[in-house]
């Protein structure tokens, strides 16, 4: 039976997409500069269908890309031309929510924010909050170890995943971790998280839920310079407080957010700093008094406390809507995700400013200052010849700055297809060999999300993974 026939027997026509018009929405994700048309898209409705599909791909040597809502900013769900897309949006059930054990077991297509909605009646919530949380899915969050605005205190997705049931690229189904907060033996659950789909597809994910903080205090401070806002972050950190979030937006990002969602940010400010404290009421009150003392010394033009939930929501609406708001300023943009040590933020931002002038390309800055995680938004017009190339070159220079400062090329968006060329600048050839060998040990034919994360991988669209690799030559692995 051919691969096509096998898919036809597995899926009714409405869930097996092959017409160009049907495939078009799947050609790209949030990294819109790249697109590729898959040979088919399947819409499984059960774990068993996903497992069967992966087994068929393995049998017929067809590469596959798993996809949730397609919000990856690194091209993580970009299809492969001769492969298929396994779209997981219909696997959107919360299988179990156990308020006593404070866990939720969910399918990969469950939207991030829906977990929190389901947990809310029990006074619980799911902490990781990427800006795309109203649409992005848990499966994608797991694959790319997504972050959010509250990582400083709560960590990334990996810190909130307790267990995973997954199908490996060879069709084997495994269960990692469990319901306990505590792992035993190698932390394979944590190792699977952030593997960018290279280890297969998560089918059921056990998430840790936290009690909703009793009290939240959100402060918005405005500064006459980006450097002053950066110094304020250093002062807050040095004070011994542990804010849940420390976010900065620069002038261009503020203007965009104001135009788009009217968040009420001070007009004309060169930078705004958002500081959020949360926890037990008694603690937060005492910490807030301390924070006020610290902020008074930072030379802020204005310090504003969100008086109620509505005011707090408005501040965050501006921040979380910043990417799409900046999109209004420019036909196209690239979002970067580099990380620098916190103490290098100031000089890095100054250097980005210089580069922006040199390249004559506008850069808006929105970033998780507490984590040193930058999100320069590089604005360009793809219709103007050469502008995309210049924007990409500028993006590359920014990544180089981050690596040179001792940081990382990605804090939370993942490497995807976008940044894999920069992996050799961050890791040694040996480091990359080991990562490649680990991938080959699990997926010798590079069927799962081929062309992502690892540099020098077979380019998407080709099936050039047929050369024997070192493990094969050593006789450690063999092809079926």
């Amino acid at each position: 039976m051919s691969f096509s026939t096998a898919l036809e027997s597995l899926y009714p026509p409405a869930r097996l997409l092959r017409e160009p018009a049907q495939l078009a929405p799947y050609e790209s994700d949030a990294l819109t500069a790249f697109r590729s048309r898959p040979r088919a898209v399947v819409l499984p409705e059960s774990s068993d269908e996903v497992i069967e599909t992966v087994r068929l791909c393995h049998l017929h040597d067809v590469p596959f890309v798993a996809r949730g809502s397609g919000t990856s900013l690194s091209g993580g769900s970009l299809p492969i031309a001769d492969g298929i897309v396994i779209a997981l949006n219909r696997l959107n059930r919360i299988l179990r929510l156990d308020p006593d054990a404070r866990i939720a077991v969910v399918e990969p297509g469950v939207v991030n924010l829906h977990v929190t909605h389901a947990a809310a009646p029990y006074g619980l919530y799911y902490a990781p909050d990427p800006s795309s949380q109203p649409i992005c899915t848990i499966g994608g969050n797991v694959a790319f170890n997504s972050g959010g605005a509250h990582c400083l205190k709560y960590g990334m997705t990996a810190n909130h995943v307790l267990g995973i049931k997954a199908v490996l690229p060879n069709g084997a189904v495994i269960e990692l971790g469990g319901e306990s907060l505590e792992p035993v033996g190698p932390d394979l659950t944590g190792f699977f998280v952030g593997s960018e789909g290279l280890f297969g597809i998560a089918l059921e994910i056990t998430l840790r839920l936290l009690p909703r903080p009793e009290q939240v205090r959100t402060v918005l401070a405005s500064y006459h310079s980006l450097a002053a806002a950066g110094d304020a972050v250093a002062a807050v950190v040095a004070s011994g407080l542990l804010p849940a979030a420390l976010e900065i937006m620069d002038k261009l990002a503020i203007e965009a957010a104001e135009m788009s969602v009217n968040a009420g940010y001070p007009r004309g400010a060169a930078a705004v700093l958002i500081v959020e404290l949360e926890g037990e009421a008694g603690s937060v009150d005492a910490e807030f008094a301390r924070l006020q003392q610290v902020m008074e010394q930072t030379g802020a033009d204005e310090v504003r406390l969100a008086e109620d939930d509505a005011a707090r929501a408005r501040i965050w609406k501006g921040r979380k809507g910043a990417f799409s708001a900046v999109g209004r300023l420019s036909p196209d943009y690239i979002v970067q995700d580099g990380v620098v040590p916190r103490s290098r933020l100031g000089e890095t931002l100054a250097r980005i400013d210089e580069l922006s002038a040199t390249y004559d390309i506008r850069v808006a800055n929105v970033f998780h200052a507490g984590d040193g995680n930058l999100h320069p938004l590089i604005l360009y017009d793809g219709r103007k010849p050469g502008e995309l190339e210049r924007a990409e070159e500028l993006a590359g220079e920014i990544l180089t700055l981050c690596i040179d400062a001792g940081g990382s090329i990605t804090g939370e968006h993942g490497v995807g297809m976008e940044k894999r060329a920069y992996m050799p600048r961050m890791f040694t050839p040996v480091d990359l060999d080991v990562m490649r060998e680990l991938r080959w040990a699990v997926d010798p034919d590079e069927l799962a999300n081929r062309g992502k994360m690892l540099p020098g991988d077979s380019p998407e669209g080709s099936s050039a993974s047929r050369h024997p690799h070192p493990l094969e030559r050593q006789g450690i692995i063999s092809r079926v």
Partner: protein
Amino acid sequence: MSAIRNIISATTIEEVQAAVSMIGPPLLARGGGTKPALSQADGVGTLDLSGLRGISEYDPGEYTFTAYAGTPLAVVRHALAEHGQYLPFDPPLADAGATLGGTIAAGVSGAGRMRYGGVRDFLIGVRFVDGQGRLVRGGGKVVKNAAGFDLPKLMTGSLGRLGVLVEVSFKVFPAPAAYATVAATLPTMAEAARMVQQLAAAPVDWEALDIAPAPKGATLWARLGGLKQALPPRVARVQELLEDSRLLTPAEDEALWRRINALDFGNAADMLVKAALTARDIPALDAALAAAGAVRHYSAAGNLAWIAWPGSAHDLDRLLAGQRLPGLTLRGAAAFPLVGRRPAAAFLQPVKQTLDPAGRFPAFEQDAD
């Protein structure tokens, strides 16, 4: 590098690479030797890393530090405390001489993991020597990083069987300025387990929530940390939640958590085993362990059990497996340290095969490789 009988001491990364590249019996790294079941086994050579020590980078403003794997926890604790910071997961056996590398390789966290998470959640970067003698880096030195496979997670709990950790980077947090512990007595362990579950769901920032059997019923210890001026009303609120409770003195608080950190449970001859579970598993497990005469202590709202087991490894393995709970032997005779429910071999074996194809480190399981 010096070799005395079956012990090789390495004080540099190059010496670790050379030791791993030699022909000889499989090696297990040893730091402080506080978890002997993980650093000793029959027919296995010891790679002593206690000399590969020292903090190489620490900038308090970054909330991160990097140190060699053989650095004792006590040295790190002291260096961090000078800047009001700490490793919030309260790594066990600090006073006994446990090291960073051993803590990671064992994958152990203490009672303080309740607040912000365990060793897996604070380890941000590793350098290790794999079974082929290659120096491999994973993760980084910044608090947030999603580039490449998460090798720091893989090495957490790797039990010395995937590679030898040589240098590690951690995220740290500002330490609470003051602590307070409330102790309560409950009629049974089942009720204590239910109570920690309830308390953990309350919007209270618990530093620790531990329970253990007492001569009559069970004792529950709830620890808070934070700004000193905020503690009295927070303690009063906890005491409202817990009938029949008492606020410990600061000296009692310190001594109690030091004792729990020392894992000083049972007799020296007992096996000391960690098990992962949830509060719901406690009534059945605790009854079975009590019947066998084991000493028990449960941390992190019933997610982490410490068991001092007087019987054979085989019997404990069966007991835990019967309840589908995974366990790890830290002390006592054990040919293979994992007991109870085992990790997914379909994923772990290819990983082991890749990093240690020639078996320079022992297997996870009998007949596994």
